[in-house]
């Protein structure tokens, strides 16, 4: 199982680590039992992502996908942000080992949760349609 150089770059020097103290939306996904936990905080203005930060407990792929999704999402409209797929995240990282594809799902889910949180807090309908479905065959083994 080998990580691409891009994964290793993001893992070694992750972008946008931290918590936005006065965040407009917060997404928390994952489960310590699985070893992967992610928290995304966003600043929204004019339905666009003005700022985005993450905290992640997890493996190299979990951290790298978290980092890369913050880069990908910054500046996007909420609508476009929730459309980021696990495949796009993996591609942006020059691929992920099959056993680690679930990490890109975690990142996408974290972002959706943060956007939905913002919308619901503001009395609007959530738009993410819930967590992305994971096909079984991408679960390693």
């Amino acid at each position, binding site marked *: *199982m080998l*990580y691409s150089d891009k994964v*290793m770059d993001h*893992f*070694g020097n*992750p972008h946008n*680590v*931290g918590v936005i103290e006065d965040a407009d939306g917060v997404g*928390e996904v994952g489960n*310590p*039992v*699985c*070893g*992967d*936990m*992610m*928290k995304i905080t966003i600043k929204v203005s004019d339905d666009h992502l003005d700022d985005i930060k993450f*905290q*992640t*407990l*997890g*493996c*190299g792929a*979990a*951290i790298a996908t978290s980092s890369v999704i913050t880069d990908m999402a910054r500046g996007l409209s909420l609508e476009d942000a929730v459309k980021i797929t696990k495949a796009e995240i993996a591609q942006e990282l020059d691929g992920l*080992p099959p*056993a*680690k594809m*679930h990490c890109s799902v975690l990142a996408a889910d974290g972002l959706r949760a943060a956007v939905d949180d913002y919308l619901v807090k503001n009395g609007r309908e959530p738009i993410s349609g819930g967590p992305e479905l994971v096909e079984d065959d991408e*679960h*390693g*083994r």
Partner: protein
Amino acid sequence: MTERRIYLDNAATTRTDPRVVAAMEPYFTETYGNANSLHAEGRAAHKALEDARARVASAINASRPDEVLFTSGGTESDNSALIGLATAGGRTSGHIVVSAFEHHAVLEPAEWLGKHGFDVTLLKPRPNGVVHADDLKDVLRDDTIMVSVMHGNNELGTVQPIAELATAARERGALFHTDAAQTLGKVEFDVAALGVDAASFSGHKIYGPKGTGVLFLKKGLRFAPYLMGGGQEFRKRSGTQNVPGAQGFATALEIMAAEREAETIRLTALRDRFEAAVVGRLENTYVNGTDAPRMPHLTSLIVKGVEGESMLLHLDAKGIAVSTGSACSSGSLQASHVLMAIDCPQEIAHGSLRVSLGRWTTEADIDCLVDALIPIVERLRAMSPVYEKMFGASGA
């Protein structure tokens, strides 16, 4: 790799000792015959093979050289022992006990036997990482045909009371196999004193060549060969014998034996130095199996609130090689089955780090590791969304 590296993953594999490489060399291009051929080239190869066999037999105190079978590694030895002993003489049923924290090379054949008529019990070790003889006695039955409990656990470093376990098995008429891939050469291994019927060893864990192993099989046992064909190795393991490999294995084992006492002292001191430093300097960190007999060179660390692979990758970037969980389970999502077997809670099991010292490890290496590890853990904990919430109460 031109930069200076610190290799602390000797439980995964070891560097082949240059003395072992030198010992193998003549058998590639000079004494290259097939040990089964009648001509001079064959006889010379045969002599080299039997010489290696006698040396291994003597190192483990086997009663006869033909109790030593050369295989392709620990995995083949384990598969052959489990399936070969269970299915000998066409047997298709019976009760088998294996410990729950065995290597997959034992667990998977046990599972195979479970699907092919045998009744398999997974015996849990105690939380200190040791399989207790009383617990074994509780699950032994009149129809128990075989028990397999590893000698040294590859993730925890804990050593099982093999003599006691083997006695318990024998008293109920069951055969006893032990996977000693991790302990060979590091902890005394005397097949007679331990009273085992079969034992598995691997060359690449003792500074010997990869792709070599040994199955000790007590004389007179019924056994169904696992690799079938030309009938080599006393009709118990077919395949043209790897003569350089056998010589390499024997030499590697002899070096281990000659240096064992001194190495035990040296490595134990280094390990203790590492453990004291890291537990002293890092909160929410502990070592598995500290109140159990352990191999001298292996530390199984639990660092709460971080994930093992992240520590591993950061250490690697600083030139230090360690592992998390067992090497083979990298890539699987589940926490290590070994840590689960000793009831390590899942949310902290992901923070396991295995540090395994070796022949060339120095005190400076250990100090480097400690100095590298601490800021890495602090950084990872700082970027965790839950560290404060889950573990913050206990200090910092």
